[in-house]
């Protein structure tokens, strides 16, 4: 497997607070990779660095062969790297369909088209409807996004993340705030829609992590504590001490 994303000795310093202290990480093409770690470990910061929201203080980030360290958000996104947010980030006043359509407009490079009407574009309409179905939101297609239930908003968020047909899907706590049942549904959905893609996710729910991930990286105090298969991580003494505790998770529950 080839390396899709390479994080090379990345430091991030927020006005004196060292959040990341030399993180090295490789995401292989096609794998489902989870980043776990206690609060404040720097997981979300790492996400924000990869997607271009922050710039690292030191170090480089490569996507394939490209050095994307100093690229603006939109360029990184167009390269095939999409993310969801921990706090739902959708277009609240627009309908589900319109939300998704905004993403499709971007995908087919129609963002600056001003000589055609958006409503009349069959290609965009078709692709938008497909995406609405993909994340199981057909029943609320024409409801305003703000009026959806929390779970549905998360599904919409996932839909927006997938809309640009990304190579690497990055999910920031996709099941946070869910009860067990909804969480289970979300995991099934994520599995389904990330087939043939690379997944990088931050997640606190260990059950979800062990169900989804092929590889796990443990982040603690801005450093990579361990990285390996779910079984290796389970066995790792240091990780147990720092994070997992004594509970054993079923890694076979797939």
């Amino acid at each position, binding site marked *: 497997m080839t390396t899709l994303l390479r994080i090379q000795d990345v430091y991030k310093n927020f006005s004196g607070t060292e959040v990341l202290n030399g993180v090295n990480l490789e995401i292989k093409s096609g794998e489902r990779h989870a980043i776990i770690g206690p609060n404040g470990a720097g997981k979300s910061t790492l996400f924000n660095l990869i997607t271009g929201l922050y710039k690292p203080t030191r170090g480089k980030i490569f996507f394939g062969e490209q050095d994307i360290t100093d690229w603006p958000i939109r360029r990184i*996104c167009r390269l095939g790297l999409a993310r969801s947010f921990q706090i739902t980030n*959708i277009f609240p006043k627009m309908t589900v369909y319109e939300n998704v359509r*905004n993403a499709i407009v971007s995908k087919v490079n129609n963002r600056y088209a001003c000589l*055609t009407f*958006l409503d009349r574009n069959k290609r965009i309409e078709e692709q938008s409807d497909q995406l609405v179905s993909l994340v199981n939101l057909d029943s609320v297609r024409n409801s305003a996004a703000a009026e959806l239930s929390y779970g549905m908003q998360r599904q919409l968020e996932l839909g927006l993340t997938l809309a640009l047909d990304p190579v690497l899907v990055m999910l920031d706590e996709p099941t946070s705030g869910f009860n067990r049942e909804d969480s289970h549904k979300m995991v099934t959905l994520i599995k389904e829609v990330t087939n043939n893609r690379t997944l990088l996710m931050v997640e606190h729910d260990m059950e979800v992590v062990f169900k989804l991930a092929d590889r796990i990286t443990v982040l603690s105090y801005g450093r990579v504590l361990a990285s390996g298969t779910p079984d290796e991580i389970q066995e790792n003494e240091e990780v147990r001490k720092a994070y997992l505790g004594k509970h054993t998770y079923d890694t076979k529950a797939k």
Partner: protein
Amino acid sequence: MKRGRMYQWLLAVAIFIFLLLVPRLLPEIKIHLVIEILIFALFAVSFNLAYGYGGLLVFGFGAFFGTGAYAAALAFKFFPALPLLLALSIAALSGLAAAVFIGSLTARLKGAYFSIGTFAFQMFFYAVALKWRSVTNGDDGIGITRPDLYLPGLGQVSMMNTNNLYYFTLIVVSLCIIGTYLFLKTPLGNSMVCVRESESRAAFLGYNVFLTKIITLSTGGFLAGLAGGFFVLFNEFIATNCIDFSMSFTVTLMAVIGGTGHFLGPVLGTVFYVVIQDWLAALTQRWWIVMGSLFIFVVLYMPGGLVSFFQFRKKSLFGRFRGQK
């Protein structure tokens, strides 16, 4: 819903016929008032393009209007042979240039900082107009004569004739407002709304937030500049009041009173504002007090603006309210 649509069309046709008949129905002094309404309606629509649709509360919108107005005045004064449409295009493009200039320096600011930033530029433009006397003539202003409009087939159309000026303004302003309405239905218009709704989500979907904002502002600046050009053509005079902060304030007031959530809200607001002002100014010099109170009233009790009142009425009139709110 269908019935509501039909009433809307009937209303639109009625208004259109009224506008066509204005020169026959109203005395000359009132035609002037309607011309003023048309010009400010275009200005208010351009403001709302940026604020209502693009989410950009530009406190200095008068700078675009004023720049267009000064550009038109200078064109009329120094190049009297310039075709009228070309002079007005120069006005519109100057408004656009002002918007690109101010926008590129302020569009990265957030919220109130952006609004205040544009306001600072508004004051800067005003200071230039006031102090650069060799060009702008400062407070004394520039007087111009209306050039004729040359139309292929019709020949020279004199703009000194109020009816001609009225129809010319009506046609151009209507085309611009309809054009803006259609523009908002294009993917680019949609991109503007995306940026308003969530900048970060738009960026993470591949939208260029900054560029989109600049496009929003420059489209608004273009229309505002054109409105400014018409204002000079109409008044045959320009002074610093065209570019001072009260212009920005007026347009904000018009749009908010009318309702920024609806495309035609600002137009309604303009009609209301100009008519009330005309009426009040005849009664008292302190008409700003009434306008200010009105503004406060609308902000506090009618956040949707006057247009929401109409929507409410329409709903209840057409029986969509089934007896309860």
